[in-house]
C-alpha cells in the first residue's frame, strides 16, 4: 500500500513537473474561440442602474452610452457635434439655446422622438421625488419650450457656460413611456428590464454580476452599426481581467501596472495603446492648523516625488500633474512653472516658517508637531504604494506622515478624517470633465463641513481671487475669455497649492487586432458605429 501511494505521489509530481515544463512554452489558444461579430469588454463591477441620471458608478457609462443618444455629443476631436440635434444656436446674451431636432430620430419602440420628449426630460431632471444623482446645471434652466415638434428652446436663469457638457449632453427620456410609470417604478429599477431607448443598441439581457448583452436597435435612426453583439462581462479582479484578455475572452481591456511585464503575451493578437485619460490623482491637504499656511503647503509640494512615482510605481503609465486641466487640452496652461522635487527647498521653507527639529527628529513649531497623516482607499494597491512613497519623502525632512488606509466610505464619511478637526491629507483620484468647471472644487461657497453639505471643496480652500475666477469660468460666454480664466486658475493652483497634484492617468490598453475603427480620446472613444470586427 505504502509503495503504491509513493508511486502515486511520484506520478503526480512528475506530471506536475511535466506540466510546468509545458508552461514555459505553452500559450494555448482560447478554450472558446470568439465568434466574429461579438465584442466583449470587462466591467470591474455590476452597474447599479441603467435608468438615466440615477446611477453613481463609472461602469454605468459604457452600457448607457450604447443605449442613449443626446442632443449633442463630443466627437473624437473633442468637438461638439449634433446627435439628436441637427443644428443649434445660442442667443447673444447666452440665456437661450435653440436646437433643431433630427426628424428621423425615433425610440426603440418605433415612436418618433419629438421636442415633447425634451420638455418631459426637463421635468424628469428637476423632479425632487426621483433618486437622481446627475443633475448638474438643471437648476439654472428656467423653461423649456417647443415652438414646433422638431424645435426645442432652453431658457436659462443666468448664463451657464457648461450647458453643452451638462444639459445638452444629458440622456433624453421617452415621455410616452416614463409618463405612464410611477415614481416608485422609476426609483426602483423598473427601467432596467423595460428600457425604451433612442441609441444604437438595446439591452437584450442583463444577468446581475455576470454580463450585459446588447444587440443593435432595430429602430436606430443614425449611422448603421456593424457589430452584431456587444457584451459587458463583470470581472472585479484586475489580474483576472488580464487573464481573460490573454485567453482571448475579451476584445479589449486595460492592463494594470502589475501585469505590464506580461504584455508581450498580448502583442500577437492585440494593439496596445497608452491613451491619456481625464483622471488625475492628487493629495488634498485639509487646511487645518499648520496646513492653513501657504508656505507649508508649498513645502509639501516641493517634497512630493512625482517623477519617481510615475517611473517606479506606475511604470510610466501616467504623466506628472501640476494642475487640474488635461495636458495638451484647450484649457491647459502651457506656461506653468511647477515646483521641482527638492527636499532641500522644502526643508528650508519650513525652517523659514519657524519649524525646528525636536523629539524623534520630527518638526515642531510652538511645541506642536507637524503631523500630517496620509489617508487613502484600501482597495487600490497603487494608491497605497504612492501614499507610502510620499510619506517616506515627507518624513525625510521631519514631517510625521503615517499612512492610513480605509474604505472610501470611511475616508469621505462623516466620522472620517475630513471632519476630525486635525491636519490630514487625502490621496485619491478625481475626474476632469469636458467643461473645466472648478467651482465646486475651489470656490469657498462649496467648502465641505458635513457629509451632506453642498460642495466638494474638501480642502477648505478659501481665496477671494479663486472665488471670482471660478464664477467667471462658468458665466463668461466667450470660450477664449474662459481659457484665460482657467490659465489664471492653474497659476493660482501652483502658487497657493490648494491641492498637491500627482499625475494624470495614462494606462496601457489592449484592443483586438480584428477590431477596426476603434480609437480612444481623452474623454471617450470613436462612436460605436465606426467600429467593426473583421
Amino acid at each position, binding site marked *: 500500500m*505504502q509503495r503504491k501511494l509513493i508511486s502515486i505521489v511520484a506520478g503526480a509530481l512528475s506530471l506536475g513537473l511535466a*506540466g510546468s515544463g*509545458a*508552461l514555459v512554452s*505553452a*500559450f*494555448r*489558444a482560447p*478554450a*472558446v474561440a470568439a*465568434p466574429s461579430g461579438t465584442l*466583449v469588454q470587462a466591467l470591474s463591477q*455590476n452597474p*447599479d*442602474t441603467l435608468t438615466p441620471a440615477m446611477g*453613481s458608478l463609472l461602469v454605468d457609462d459604457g452600457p448607457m452610452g450604447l443605449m442613449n443618444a443626446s442632443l449633442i455629443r463630443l466627437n473624437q476631436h473633442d468637438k461638439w457635434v449634433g446627435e439628436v440635434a441637427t443644428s443649434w444656436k445660442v442667443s447673444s446674451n447666452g440665456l437661450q439655446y435653440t436646437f433643431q431636432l433630427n426628424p428621423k430620430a425615433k425610440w426603440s419602440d418605433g415612436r418618433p422622438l419629438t421636442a415633447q420628449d425634451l420638455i418631459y426630460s426637463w421635468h424628469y431632471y428637476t423632479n*425632487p*421625488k426621483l*433618486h*437622481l*444623482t*446627475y443633475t*448638474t*446645471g438643471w*437648476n439654472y434652466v428656467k423653461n423649456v419650450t417647443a415652438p414646433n415638434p422638431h424645435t426645442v428652446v432652453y431658457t436659462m436663469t443666468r448664463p451657464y457656460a457648461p450647458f453643452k457638457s451638462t444639459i445638452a449632453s444629458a440622456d433624453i427620456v421617452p415621455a410616452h413611456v416614463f409618463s405612464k410609470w410611477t415614481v416608485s417604478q422609476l*426609483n*426602483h*429599477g423598473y427601467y432596467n428590464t423595460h428600457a425604451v431607448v433612442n441609441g444604437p443598441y438595446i439591452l437584450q439581457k442583463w444577468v*446581475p*454580476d*455576470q454580463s450585459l448583452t446588447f444587440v443593435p436597435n432595430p429602430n436606430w435612426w443614425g449611422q448603421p452599426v456593424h457589430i452584431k453583439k456587444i*457584451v459587458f*462581462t*463583470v*470581472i*472585479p*479582479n484586475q489580474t483576472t481581467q488580464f*487573464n*481573460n484578455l490573454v*485567453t482571448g*475572452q475579451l476584445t479589449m481591456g486595460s492592463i494594470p501596472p502589475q501585469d505590464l511585464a506580461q504584455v508581450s503575451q498580448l502583442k500577437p493578437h492585440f494593439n496596445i495603446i497608452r491613451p491619456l485619460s481625464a483622471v488625475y490623482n492628487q493629495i488634498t491637504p485639509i487646511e487645518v492648523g499648520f496646513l492653513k499656511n501657504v508656505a507649508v503647503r508649498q513645502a509639501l509640494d516641493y517634497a512630493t516625488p512625482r517623477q519617481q512615482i510615475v517611473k517606479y510605481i506606475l511604470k510610466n503609465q501616467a504623466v506628472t500633474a501640476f494642475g487640474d486641466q488635461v495636458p495638451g487640452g484647450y484649457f491647459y496652461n502651457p506656461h506653468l512653472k511647477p515646483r521641482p522635487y527638492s527636499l532641500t527647498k522644502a526643508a528650508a521653507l519650513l525652517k523659514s516658517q519657524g519649524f525646528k527639529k525636536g523629539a524623534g527628529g520630527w518638526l515642531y513649531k510652538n511645541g506642536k508637531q507637524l503631523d500630517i497623516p496620509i489617508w487613502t482607499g484600501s*482597495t487600490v494597491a497603487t494608491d497605497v504604494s504612492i501614499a507610502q512613497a510620499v510619506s517616506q519623502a515627507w518624513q525625510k525632512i521631519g514631517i510625521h506622515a503615517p499612512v492610513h488606509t480605509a*474604505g*472610501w*466610505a*470611511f*475616508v*469621505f*464619511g*462623516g*466620522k472620517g478624517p475630513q471632519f476630525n478637526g486635525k491636519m490630514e491629507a487625502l490621496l485619491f483620484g478625481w*475626474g476632469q*470633465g469636458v467643461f473645466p468647471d472648478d467651482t465646486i472644487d475651489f470656490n469657498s461657497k*462649496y467648502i*465641505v463641513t458635513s*457629509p*451632506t*453639505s*453642498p460642495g*466638494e471643496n474638501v480642502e477648505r480652500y478659501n481665496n477671494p481671487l479663486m472665488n471670482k475666477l471660478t464664477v467667471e469660468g462658468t458665466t463668461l460666454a466667450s470660450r477664449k475669455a474662459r481659457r484665460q480664466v482657467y490659465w489664471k486658475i492653474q497659476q493660482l493652483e501652483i502658487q497657493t497649492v490648494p491641492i498637491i497634484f500627482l499625475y494624470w492617468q495614462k494606462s496601457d490598453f489592449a484592443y483586438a487586432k480584428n477590431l477596426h475603427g476603434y480609437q480612444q480620446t481623452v474623454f471617450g472613444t470613436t462612436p460605436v458605429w465606426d467600429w467593426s470586427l473583421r
Partner: protein
Amino acid sequence: MWRYVVQRILEAIPLLFLVTLVTYFLMNLTPGGPLSLYMHNPKVAPQTLHVLALQMGLTKPWYVRYFLWLWSLLHGNWGYSYFSGQPVLALIGQRLPNTLILMGSSFMISLGIGIPLGIYVATHQYSLQDHVFSFASFFAWAMPSFFFGLLLQTVFAVKLGWLPVSGMYSVYQPPSLGQLLQHLILPAFVLGLGSLAGWSRYMRSGILEVIRQDYIRTARAKGLSERKVIWKHALKNALLPIVTIIGLDLPGFFGGAVITEQIFAWPGMGRLFLSSLNERDYPVQMAGLLIGAILLVVGNLLADLTYSLLDPRIQYR
C-alpha cells in the same frame, strides 16, 4: 423532539431581534455613510447630496430608521438598495442560487475528500502517507485563497487552456450544464481546499481518539473486520465534532466566499455583501446580517438534532 425544536425557535426570536438592533446600531456607528460614495464622484452635483439624504431618510436619527426598517420587515418588505434602487430580496434572489451551487460543490469536495482522507491518515498514523498528507493539509490550510486562486487560474486557464478563466458561463455560448461544470471546477476547488484540509485534520484526531476506546477494542476482539470497526463503530462517534463545525459553517453558504468570488468573477452573495459594505448600503447589509444570523441559529439547531441521530445517548425532550 418537536417540542424541543419549537422551544429553540421561540428562544431565537428575541435573540434575532437583539442581533438586528445591535448590528443596526454598530452599522451606523461605523465611520462613513451611504452618501460618502457620492462625495467621491465628481459627476454628482453638491446640492444633490442633500436631496438624496432626505430621500433615503438619512436625516432621521438611527433608532427611528431602525424601527422603520423593522416595521417594514415585519410587513414582508425588506427594503430597497440605496444604490440600485432594487428590492433587497430581488438582489439576493438573483445571487443566492449561484452561491448555493458554488458552496455546495466546494462542500462536496471538502466532505468527499476530507473525511475519507482524515480516516485514512488516522488509520496509518506516523506512516509516510500520514506525514505527506499532514504536510499537504497544513500547506493547503495556510495558503491564501487569493494567491492559490490566481495560481490555478494562470496554470489551468491561461497556460494550459483546459479550463475557463472566470465567470459562470461563457459569454459566447448559450448557458449549459457542461459549461457550468467547467466554470465551477477551479473556484469550487479553491474554496473547498481550506475546509478539506481542516476537516481532514479534525477527522484524523477524532478517529485517533475513538480507536483507543474500549468499545473499539471490544469490536476488534469480537473478530470484526478492520473496515467494519472503523466505518461502522469509530466513524459515527468521531463525526460529532465535525457535525458541530459544519453546523457553524452553514451561514457561510449564504454569505458566499468573498475572495474566491472576486477572483473567479463568480456572481454570488459574497460580492453583493462586499459591495454593500463598501457602499454602506444599509438595507442590503441588514438583510445579509439577518439572514446570516438566522442560518447560524438553524445550523446550530440542525447540528444539535444530528447529535441525537449519531449518538442515541443524546435525547431531546
